[in-house]
Each structure stands twice: as C-alpha cells, then as structure tokens.
C-alpha cells in the first residue's frame, strides 16, 4: 500500500524547523518533497546539531537529519535570475510549495504567489512566517524564542512566586517552529482537499505567532472574561500537581479530582496527617501547599519512579514519570509499540529517531530514505526531471547557482 500522499509533489524552501517539519509530515505519508537549499551553506539546521561526538558537520546534525527524512535535496540560489528560472520549472511540476522565507526576503528575491500562479494555477503555496504576510509586524525580525514569547506562552512558565526574579522560561527546543509547521500543514491539507473539488490552488498565510496564540489553554480568556492575567507568578489553585524527586529520578504527582487524591492517600498507606482539615479538598490543598509539600516530599523521596507511578496508575491516578531521554529510549511501552525508528545515513551513521506520530490502519507512515546530503539529488532532479545537460550543470555550479 502506498502512502496517502504518494501522488503529491512538494517543493520546500525551508530553513530550521517550521517549513521542514510541515513537509516532513507529508513526506513521511508518501509525498515527494524536493527540498531546496542555498548552495554552499544549506539549511541552517545543518549547523545546529546535536552532532555525534560534538563535532559540527553539515551532514551530521541531528535536528536536520530528523526533519528532512524522505526528501530529495537540491541546491539552488533563487536570488539569481537563472536560479529563479529553474525554481519556476520545479514549481511548474509541483502541487505544493511550502516555505518559511521571511517577507523582506520574499520581496528581495521576488517570491510571490501572483508570480508562481501564472506558471502553475493549481499550486498551493503555504507561507509560514513569524508574524504573517500582512500586518504591522510583517517585516520584523524574529527567532523561535521571540515568537514563543510574543505568542503568549513564555509568560506562563517559570519558577513561580517564590522565584519571581527568574525570567519567564522557554520550553526546550524550537517549539514555535514545530507549531508553525503542524498548523500550516493542517491548512495545506485543507487546501489540497478543496483543490480536489475546485481544481484550483491557493495561497495560505500561516503566521507562527497565531499558531502559538491559538493554543493558550484557558489563559488568554482570563483577560476578556475576568480581567485577570495568568502568569508564572500566580499560585496554583489546585494541589498537588507538581514535580517531586524520587530515589531514582523525578515523578509528576497529579491529583486534580478529589477521588484521585483519596486514592493517593491510600497508596501512601493512609497517613494520619492526610486527614487534617487543612488538606480537606483540592482548593484547601492549594492554599496550604506550604504545609502539604514537605509531607509529600518526604513520602515520594523514598519511592522509585516506576514503582510509585504504577501503584498510582493501578488506582487510576494520572501520575507520570518525568521521562529522561534514557528512560524514553528504554521504555517498555514505547518499545512494544515500536515507536523509535533506526535510520542509517551514510555520513552520520545509524541512530534511533522519533518515529510515527500516529499509526494509520491503511496508509503507511514510513521512512524510505534518510535526509539528503547537501545537493545530493541535483543531478537526479536537474538532469533527470528538467533535462539539463552535464555541461549546463557544470556551468550553473561554476556560477554558484547550484
């Protein structure tokens, strides 16, 4: 069985995370992706690692290798006239263009939907940008952290009121990029489905700031509904919902419903203090957290993570281990489900990677090829698809176009 998107051809102009993640999601479901990188340097993700033995190498970046599976890699400088002409030829045969070229750069190189739609009226062009293609921040500089902050997430995370001096804290990694990527992929799939009906392509404007602001749980609505502001400095109203240290690692203790707390008390062997009125309900436990925390610390510190977790789960209490990379890789559940995949890439070697985000009954998620080396498929694409002669390729290479 072929992947669900095996008839789809995508051109990606992607750097770092957002556009590469969007097209990876589709490539892993069978789409053909031609990834265009700048000659010489390539995708910035190639410089970010992690690298085996910490030795930076453009073909060994873990982030790049993860985000670019199943893609064909070509180099092309679309800022040159010749380069743009070749780009247009690739677009002529594509269903989708996914890019995260920022608007000022789009203007500079002349990348616009109006121009490309003349070549291919059925093209779906997805523009992932920090702030959107229109609006007062259109040309503003941004990095992953500044978008995460400006989308409204960063303010929620940090050391709490007892560490007010510590800054609002980012979540690990390039999360704005991932969220920009997946949200734009949803819109892109919507456009693809509409194209089956209408026979026409279209342009999608997918800002990362909005992808973040769209997922603020109940925190945004505190302002329009109650004129309150949720921040890292607020006290948690309900407890216990907190990280604790066990003998061998951390565990997340989570008793949101009353019956979960009662069951946890049983797990702890019904200690006398748990019957005190100041711990009588979840709000009281929140108010009296200073008194409750040491009691729980004392108990949890004598447990091991998996043992306490399984005892809690046996009573339907939603605790979780605070997974480390090591415990994830060794995890019995993930491994029984075959989550991690081993991918061999000729330069970087063979490593385990995160696998399918979902399991489909009929249309497979699969890794067919590892991420491309820089310009690996130049000949296959430029000669094989576009019919360029070896002499022409040499000339373009000399000029720095490819």
């Amino acid at each position, binding site marked *: 069985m072929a992947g*669900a998107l095996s008839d789809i051809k995508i051109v990606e102009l992607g750097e770092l995370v957002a556009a590469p993640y969007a097209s990876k999601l589709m490539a892993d479901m069978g789409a053909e992706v031609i990834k265009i990188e700048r000659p010489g340097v390539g995708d910035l993700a190639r410089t970010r690692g992690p690298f085996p033995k910490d030795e930076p190498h453009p073909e060994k970046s873990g982030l790049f290798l993860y985000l670019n599976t199943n893609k064909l890699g070509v180099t092309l400088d679309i800022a040159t006239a010749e380069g743009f002409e070749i780009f247009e030829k690739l677009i002529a045969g594509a269903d989708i263009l996914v890019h995260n070229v920022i608007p000022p750069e789009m203007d500079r190189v002349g990348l616009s939907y109006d121009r490309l739609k003349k070549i291919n009226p059925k093209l779906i062009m997805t523009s992932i940008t920090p702030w959107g293609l229109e609006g007062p921040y259109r040309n503003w500089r941004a*990095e992953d952290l500044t*978008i995460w*902050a400006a989308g409204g997430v960063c303010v929620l995370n940090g050391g709490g009121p007892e560490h007010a001096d510590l800054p609002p804290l980012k979540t690990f990694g390039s999360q704005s990029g991932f969220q920009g990527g997946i949200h734009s992929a949803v819109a892109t799939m919507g456009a693809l489905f509409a194209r089956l009906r209408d026979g*026409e392509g279209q*342009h999608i404007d997918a800002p990362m700031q909005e992808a973040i602001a769209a997922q603020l749980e109940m925190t945004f609505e505190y302002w329009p*509904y109650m004129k309150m502001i949720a921040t890292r400095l607020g006290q948690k109203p309900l407890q216990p919902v907190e990280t604790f240290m066990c003998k061998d690692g951390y565990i997340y203790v989570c008793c949101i419903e009353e019956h979960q707390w009662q069951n946890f008390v049983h797990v702890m062997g019904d200690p006398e203090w748990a019957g005190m009125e100041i711990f009588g309900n979840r709000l009281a436990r929140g108010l009296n957290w200073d008194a409750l925390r040491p009691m729980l610390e004392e108990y949890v510190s004598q447990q091991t993570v998996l043992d306490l977790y399984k005892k809690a789960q046996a009573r339907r209490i939603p605790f979780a281990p605070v997974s480390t990379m090591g415990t994830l890789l060794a995890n019995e559940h993930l491994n029984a489900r075959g*989550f991690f995949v081993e991918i061999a890439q000729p330069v970087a070697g063979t490593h385990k990677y995160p696998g399918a985000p979902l399991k489909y009954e009929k249309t497979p998620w699969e890794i067919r090829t590892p991420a491309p080396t820089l310009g690996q498929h130049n000949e296959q694409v430029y000669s094989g698809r576009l019919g360029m002669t070896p002499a022409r390729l040499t000339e373009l290479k000399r000029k720095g176009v490819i």
Partner: protein
Amino acid sequence: MAKQPPLSGIRVCDFTWVWAGPYCTLQLAHLGAEVIRIETKTRPCVTRQLPPWPDGQFLGLNRSGYFNQYNQGKKSLSLNFKHPEAKEIARKLISKSDILINNFAAGIIEKMGFGYEEAKKLKSDIIMITLSGYGDTGPWKEFVAYGPAQVPLSGLSSLTGYKDFPPMHAGFSYADPNAGVHGAFALLTALYHRAKTGEGQYIDMSQWECAMGLLAEGILEYTMNGREPVRNGNRDAFMAPHGNFKCIDWPEKILDVTIDRWVSIVCADDAEWSRLATAMGQQELASDARFKTLAARKQNEDELESIIQKWTSAQTVEDVIATLQKANVAVGAVADSRYLSTDANLTARDFFVYKEHPEVGKRQHCGIPWKMRGTPTEVRSAAPTLGQHTDEVLTGLLGYSASDVEALRKLGALD
C-alpha cells in the same frame, strides 16, 4: 464567486472532551466541517466547569471562557447513553458522518458500543481516530492521562528548566493541543486518501508519541552521544544573547499576582549582536573581546545578559521593541493575555473573533491561525450552549419528528 470552505459537506461525529480532542475538531470546524459534539448533561465536559467565567462566578455550564474558546463553530447534541434510544441516535448520526473521533482512554469507546468495528457497519467508509494518552496497544495502554502530566511524560520537562534547577513544565498542557492538531492533520490525510480511493480507515494516536518529535534534538543527543542534555534556561548553544529581559516595572498586582514586564531578545550572529550593541548606544561592545564572537559571548554570557538587562530595565517593553526592531534585532514582548488582547499585529490581522453568545455576550476569542486566500475560512459561530443543537440535529438531520423529540426528552434520553 465566493468559494465554499475546504471541508464544507464533511460531517464530524465528535465524542471528544476536555482539550486535546476539542482542539482537533476545532481545526476541522475552522476548515468548514460540520462538527457535532456529543455531550451529556449528566457528565458535562470538564472545561464547561472550569474558569474563566464572566465576573468570576460559576453560574452554569455555558459560561466558561475555556470551553467557549475551543468549541467555536461547533454544534452540541445532548444525549444520555443510559437510554438505548440515545445510543440509537448516536448510531444514526455515525451513519451520516464522515469522521468519528474520541479522546477516551483505550477501550472506552468500544465499551460504549461505538468502536471502529461497529462504526464501520454503520458507515462503511468512516474515518475514525482515537486520541488517547498512551495509544491503543502496549503494556501501558490503559493508563490514565491528564493534560498537565503529559508534558513531563513526553520528555519535554526533563529538558526544560533553569540551570541547576529541577525539571520544569511548559506552563500549559502543551501535549494536548499538539495532539489535537496532529490528529487533525492525520484526519485530513485520511480524508484525502478516501477521496481518491473511497476507503475509510482507523487511526491510533498516542498523545505521548505525538509530542516526541518536538524533542528530537534531545532524543538525538542521547542516541548519538549517550548523554542527557543539560537544562539551560532560555539559553541556546548556537546563539547569544538568547533570553528574556526585564523591563521597567511599576508596581501592579491583580488579585495578589504580581504583573511584571519582559521582552525576549535574540542575536542569531555577530552582525546582529553588533546591531544590538549599537542600538543600546554601546557600540564599543560589538568589538569588545568578551563579546565579539559567539564563542566569546557564550563564555561571558552572564556578563552579556546583565549588560542587556541593565539597558532594558530602564525602559518600557514598547520602547525596547521599537528601538530594536528599527535596528533589525529579533525582539518580542513576553506577551501576557492583556498585552495580546491589544497586540497591534493580531488586531490588524483580525485574528480575534467576537461572536454573539446567548449567555456571555460578545467576548474576545482567539480565531483561526491562518488565512486561506482561495477558500476563505471563518469562525461561523460562538461555542454552543449544552444541547443547543439537539432539536436541530434530531429533526433536521436524523429524521425525528417534533413529537419524537418531545418523547425522547421526557424519557431523559436527551439529558
């Protein structure tokens, strides 16, 4: 001629609740699908009972800003499955739906009688997804998962935190919306496959697995080098400065919570650092040996940050942003909800939605995070009140008469 939204004509039978599932079906509603949430008055959606509420008071199940945010543009059908008649209604709805979705723990939807095998009998090309915490198979499949606990489970917490502090959270139940939006992508992929082949299918989703791509860098650090990454606050190995900096503060508390103000600033390379130094009026720092190169800035990062902190602490967020964006330096507000609500960019782009709601009036809600220029998408209505569309669905779609509905209501099947 105005085009229909992408998913017009697609119907979703939505058994989800809390956040992950509703975030999934919100994407489908955004794209124009008819999403019918199956609810019950006997066990209302958790988020209907959570704050925020207008005036801070819980006065009923239709007033939660949380529920009203993530259920915009959907319909609500109230059913009490203690009654076989209610189950029959659900079966009829499934037979007229394209997508069946739930986010119960593994096995629950089967026990209710709406598992994939039954659903297929009702609609041969149905597409079904279960968004569970752990997935449908594996030794932990029956474990319970709550939003906040999925962040530490995923591995993100052990990577997130201040240097020399314990693991931290993401600050919100991040794995929930992440699972929801990935689920929507999967459903759209399956819809596309069905359009080509006529074939439906089942999708097994583990929220946990869905979140692990987000920490690929951490996982690869381990599989390449056998090492756990070290938590390092807001810092980045390849950029400096890279952090949040406190701005001028004036004492403000809202209900005992201190409101402080920060900006985030990043310099991706030496040239950007030079622009920042100049913008701060301290051009000499650009060529200062302590900060000239990335390696030097990483070496002296405490000092670097305190210099920037000193500069920002005497200014407002707005002034820092104006100065630095003019200098082409990456900067943004560490926006809280009040800041976002008047954010110039989001406002100018009409990101926010104000739809009339019978019990809370017009409130500001976050809208659709993309603009589709060929097939415009819009939030069609405010979130439904509990059971708001019961009569409409029963009589308009499923062929019940008004007197049937009355009898069913008397019986309690529509509670």
